[in-house]
């Protein structure tokens, strides 16, 4: 089957992006280089085409009930225009996806991972029960663009009817860009301040060019990955999967067992007592990167596998995440990583690896 293309595909190709297949889409992995684009986001403003992310909208009298039923975090506790991170779990508490839920005065929205879009749409339908909900998958009719970095919000001054600098972190506003409806959300996946904008696909190139004219620089999925890794944000398929639960992933803050019944709650309640391997971060000595699948060792004995690892451009050192038994998860614990046959020393550190300076 042909890969899907975002409304910005032709722009990326015309501007010499290196395109790669990603979760059924052809996506730009880099333009000028990962390190350069990474630094742009940490110091200025980077622009990402994230139209591959799934965008679902919900209406109808029972929309809230359906979301509450499949979402580990509390939907009912959200204010209008608030955005909340959480998980969708199966009955065993395994993670089907990590998602953002948006609450509007008139309905709800959910942004899901590209790799899981069809699975989650199917899951929502399968769990709908008798609830009266209208769900629309808007992914292919819209685009989604992230502008991220310390200058991201100020670059957008005057662009939208509603001033994005007035948005609180993890809030969103339905507004207009040149008379066309759009959503501007103060969220992101880079560890920096910034916005994510959803707008009709016909406006994609115009708004993208506008961001660039204002000083944002296009960045690919390569930099998005090193940025989120420094910020220790989990990536589905790496730190998250159906065989892992949110508690061991360090996401208990996004699981509200006290909110009442939801899919996976009973299993998660039980697993609280159990000692499952937990997600840790560590720095690795030397110049070689630990990669996904590298063995993590303690005194020569295998205790886990690396889920993500790379050179951290901002921190200028090697970092990685893995699942290890809780006894090895204490900050300062000395471990080793097998990097293609050579053992490199590693030290468990506090997550996130990188935190943006307070304004």
């Amino acid at each position, binding site marked *: 089957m042909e890969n899907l293309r975002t409304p910005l595909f032709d722009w990326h190709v015309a501007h010499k992006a290196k395109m790669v297949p990603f979760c059924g889409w052809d996506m730009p992995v*880099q333009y000028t280089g990962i390190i350069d684009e990474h630094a742009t986001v940490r110091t200025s403003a980077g622009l990402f085409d994230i139209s591959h992310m799934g965008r679902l909208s919900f209406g109808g009298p029972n929309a809230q009930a359906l979301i509450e039923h499949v979402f580990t975090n509390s939907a009912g506790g959200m204010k209008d225009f608030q955005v909340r991170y959480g998980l969708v779990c199966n009955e065993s508490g395994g993670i089907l996806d990590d998602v953002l839920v948006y609450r509007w005065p008139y309905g709800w929205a959910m942004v899901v991972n590209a790799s899981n879009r069809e699975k989650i749409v199917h899951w929502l339908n399968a769990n709908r029960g008798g609830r009266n909900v209208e769900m629309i998958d808007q992914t292919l009719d819209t685009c989604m663009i992230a502008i991220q970095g310390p200058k991201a919000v100020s670059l957008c001054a005057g662009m939208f009817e509603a001033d994005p600098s007035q948005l609180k972190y993890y809030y969103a506003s339905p507004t207009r860009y040149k008379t066309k409806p759009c959503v501007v959300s103060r969220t992101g996946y880079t560890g920096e301040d910034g916005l994510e904008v959803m707008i009709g696909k016909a406006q994609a190139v115009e708004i993208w060019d506008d961001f660039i004219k204002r000083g944002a620089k296009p960045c690919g999925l390569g930099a998005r990955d090193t940025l989120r890794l420094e910020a220790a944000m989990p990536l589905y398929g790496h730190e998250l999967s159906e065989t892992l639960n949110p508690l061991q992933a360090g996401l208990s803050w996004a699981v509200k067992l006290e909110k009442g019944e939801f899919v996976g709650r009973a299993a998660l309640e039980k697993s609280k007592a159990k000692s499952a391997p937990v997600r840790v971060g560590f720095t690795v000595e030397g110049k070689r990167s630990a990669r996904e699948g590298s063995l993590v060792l303690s005194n020569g004995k295998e205790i886990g596998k690396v889920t993500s690892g790379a050179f951290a451009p901002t921190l200028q050192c090697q970092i990685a995440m893995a699942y290890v038994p809780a006894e090895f998860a204490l900050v300062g614990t000395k471990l080793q990583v097998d990097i293609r046959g050579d053992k490199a020393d590693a030290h468990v550190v506090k997550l996130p690896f990188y935190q943006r300076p307070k304004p």
Partner: protein
Amino acid sequence: MDPKTLRYSKTHEWASLSGDVVTVGISSFAADQLQDITFIKLPAAGDDVAADRSFGEIETVKAVSDLYSPVSGTVAEVNQPAADNPDLIKNAPFGDGWLVKVRVAPGSTLNHLQSYDDYQKQVASEAH
């Protein structure tokens, strides 16, 4: 070196024979593919290398790639400046960015490797 006079492996290394020493590097096509090099691992002088076997690696932010030796022999010299400064490999893959010199058995040839023209055909088929 003149790229047209070199011989090439399927894995994008070039080789040049002078006496019984073969100089080895990577092609400009390979160098252009490698963005954001973070580390280059090369063997030490005196190490044995074998044809089609890994003799080192080039690590980028995104991934690690093996370097394959086009010939069998003993490493006579390592281009340490290139290992320390990957820009040399990016900017002059056929010149100052060479990687190792390998002493081969007397009478060895590079006939098992591709000519420049054949290598260009391989590159054209991989470039899209």
